[in-house]
């Protein structure tokens, strides 16, 4: 009896099923939690990611080294320069929120880790410390119940902590005691906004809130129809002065509250415009979930969704579409950056695109070949560096930061290639 053919067929079928079986069973499941956060501090880039917070020289892309009071680089016993970095191993911490200075005249900061432990850190010494700034191996901490995925915000009196479970928590900045707590339906994954005397934030349970920042009393809330994971923005029509990517400063900016509007992207595939008294004024439908904060420059709102489409909408004309561009990439999580001529976006799979502000056409493409989810950071020009930089962070610690000129030329990579 000839059995070779059926056997071969059976073997092939078994192999195919085994491949399917392995393919299904071995699907990668992410072990990490969130992505890096970038902040500009005295022309250095403060990178907060997983188990460490580190400083990188924005001009050179090299790690910042610790210096003594005479400005000399500190070294270890074998002569190796000591880098500026705060390591979470000592406190068994993961960090996704940048340190917040207790006051501007001090080097003492508050560092909130993912599990809600609040430490003091001495930024001059790059160490965890006591509240007075003395470096210690086992620093004391204040524990709050809740996880922190995103940047926290502070004013002169309080820290405002968005907690991923349910609450927004206001702590007295000096004593770290609870001033007030506001419970939401599904938790807050994005950074609240302080505008005037009020705190504004959106939650995963679809609502957008306005609270009195002093006592946490709710002024109003509105249902946006979808979860909001990216920070809403406030825009009052003020012309852009630079391309800085930072969110509105809390109290040191004189907002034109009469002309102000909030803009938020939702998982309900919409961009929503909300008035100062909590009314939904306009809704624009996108192709997919919106997980990036919009950027408004000169009345035009730029945003992107997780299908990889970039949109330019007219805020002065009921969020009407000016142009949209399907970038043919994976989703875009990072907030678009807007320069004089271009809208810069980076996709989840690390494709950086320069789009024309006028019509959305793609003018330049760079590939990082790394997964990229963080918001980009704009580094303004200095005397020695006449061109501003666009810094992009990946989730790969071995290729963590890429710096490009605003024209798209790569300047450095961190960590530097050995």
């Amino acid at each position: 009896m000839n059995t070779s053919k059926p056997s071969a067929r059976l073997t092939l079928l078994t192999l195919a099923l085994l491949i399917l079986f392995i393919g299904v069973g071995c699907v990668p499941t992410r072990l990490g939690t969130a992505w890096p956060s970038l902040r500009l501090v005295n022309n250095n880039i403060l990178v907060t990611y997983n188990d460490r917070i580190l400083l990188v020289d924005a001009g050179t892309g090299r790690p910042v080294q610790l210096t003594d009071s005479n400005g000399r680089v500190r070294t270890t016993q074998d002569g190796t320069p000591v880098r500026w970095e705060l390591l979470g191993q000592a406190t068994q911490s993961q960090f996704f929120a940048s340190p917040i200075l207790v006051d501007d005249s001090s080097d003492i900061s508050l560092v909130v880790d993912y599990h809600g432990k609040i430490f003091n850190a001495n930024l001059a010494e790059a160490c965890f410390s006591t509240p007075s700034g003395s470096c210690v191996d086992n620093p004391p901490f204040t524990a709050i119940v809740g996880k922190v995925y995103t940047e926290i915000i502070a004013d002169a009196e309080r820290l405002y902590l968005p907690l991923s479970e349910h609450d927004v928590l206001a702590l007295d900045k000096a004593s770290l005691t609870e001033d007030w707590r506001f419970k939401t339906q599904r938790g807050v994954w994005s950074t609240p906004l302080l505008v005037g005397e009020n705190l504004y934030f959106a939650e995963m349970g679809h609502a957008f809130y306005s609270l009195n920042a002093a006592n946490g009393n709710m002024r109003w809330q509105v249902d946006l129809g979808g979860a909001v994971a990216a920070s809403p923005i406030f825009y009052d029509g003020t012309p852009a002065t630079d391309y800085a990517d930072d969110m509105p400063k809390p109290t040191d900016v004189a907002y034109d509250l009469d002309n102000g509007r909030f803009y938020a992207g939702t998982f309900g595939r919409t961009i929503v415009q909300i008035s100062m008294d909590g009314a939904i004024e306009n809704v624009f439908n996108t192709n997919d979930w919106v997980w990036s904060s919009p950027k408004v420059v000169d009345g035009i709102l730029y945003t992107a969704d997780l299908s990889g489409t970039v949109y330019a909408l007219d805020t002065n004309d009921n969020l009407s579409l000016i142009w949209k561009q399907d970038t043919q990439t994976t989703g875009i999580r990072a907030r678009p950056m807007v320069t004089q001529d271009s809208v810069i976006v980076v996709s989840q799979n690390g494709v950086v695109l320069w789009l024309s502000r006028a019509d959305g056409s793609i003018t330049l493409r760079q590939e990082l070949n790394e997964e990229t989810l963080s918001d980009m950071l704009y580094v303004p020009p200095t005397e020695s560096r006449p061109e501003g930089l666009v810094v992009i962070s990946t989730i790969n610690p071995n290729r963590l930061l890429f710096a490009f000129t605003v024209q798209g030329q790569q300047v450095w990579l961190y960590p530097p290639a050995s």
Partner: protein
Amino acid sequence: MFDLILNPFITILALFYSVFAQNIVLSIAVFTVLVRLATSPLLLQQHRSTAKMQELQPKMKKLQEKYKGDREKLSQAQMEMYREAGVNPLGGCLPLLVQLPVFLAMYQTIIHALANTPYQLIDLSGRILFPGLDNIVPIQNIWAGMDLTLPPTINPTYALILPLLVMVTQWVSYKVTVPEMPPNEDGTPNQMAQTTKTMANVMMVMFGFFSLSFSVGISIYFVVSNTTGMVQYTLLGKADWGKLIGKSKVKPATITAGSGDGKLSTASKVKASPATVKSGGGKLASPTDVRGANPLSGAVSKTEKRKNNKMRPRSQTN
């Protein structure tokens, strides 16, 4: 390829979540039951195939004896036997192989749907295929005070009941659904039966360990899946609940007294008719039923076996 299974599954689970008043546990339970029902034909086919293979075991043993040392001939004879009996030797494995990806996809669906961190939610994006279902994201993952995305050890103490439930349902399920092997003709315990017993215990411990390490949501899936499996087998008449109290459908081997030839026979109370042995002739009778019965039981006496072994050339005993 993986997304072809996973994304529709996630969408269906999201749909159930939307329909069942955003109760994720009920949604997981209903979806698990439906998936198990949908794979019932495969289960049935697998069971039939296993039963047929069991039926052929005595013949197989005989062939192995006959062609000991000549693998090629043995293989040919086996294939011939399968062909005549209309049995596919892989018939028991293939349905299982088809079911495994489905069950693994269920497992992955629950992990993905209960996304609880930014990374996990990014992974979930684009997997819900109906745009109207986006507004149920993120899925509520707190149930009865437990965070379904965390292992029981990080949840309230009462969550530890889930790994216990998983272990119990897993053990019972294995015990009542895996057919019992009758003892050998010489009365010694069947090695397969021993393996089955060990496997029941190993699986129970293994799944208990999984449940302690994986999220509570997965434990709920395990419990519902095991329970549904038992109900399915019971409805198909394939579950042997007697095994739990030591009253299996399969009877242990007994030595038939009085026949004078030292024959062994295996009786079967339920369904399986005892193999008919014509006295003194050593002839084989066709089995009247397959389940749990060894149609060759009593056919070959110990004496005959010994005789056969002695007659076999030494070179063939390798």
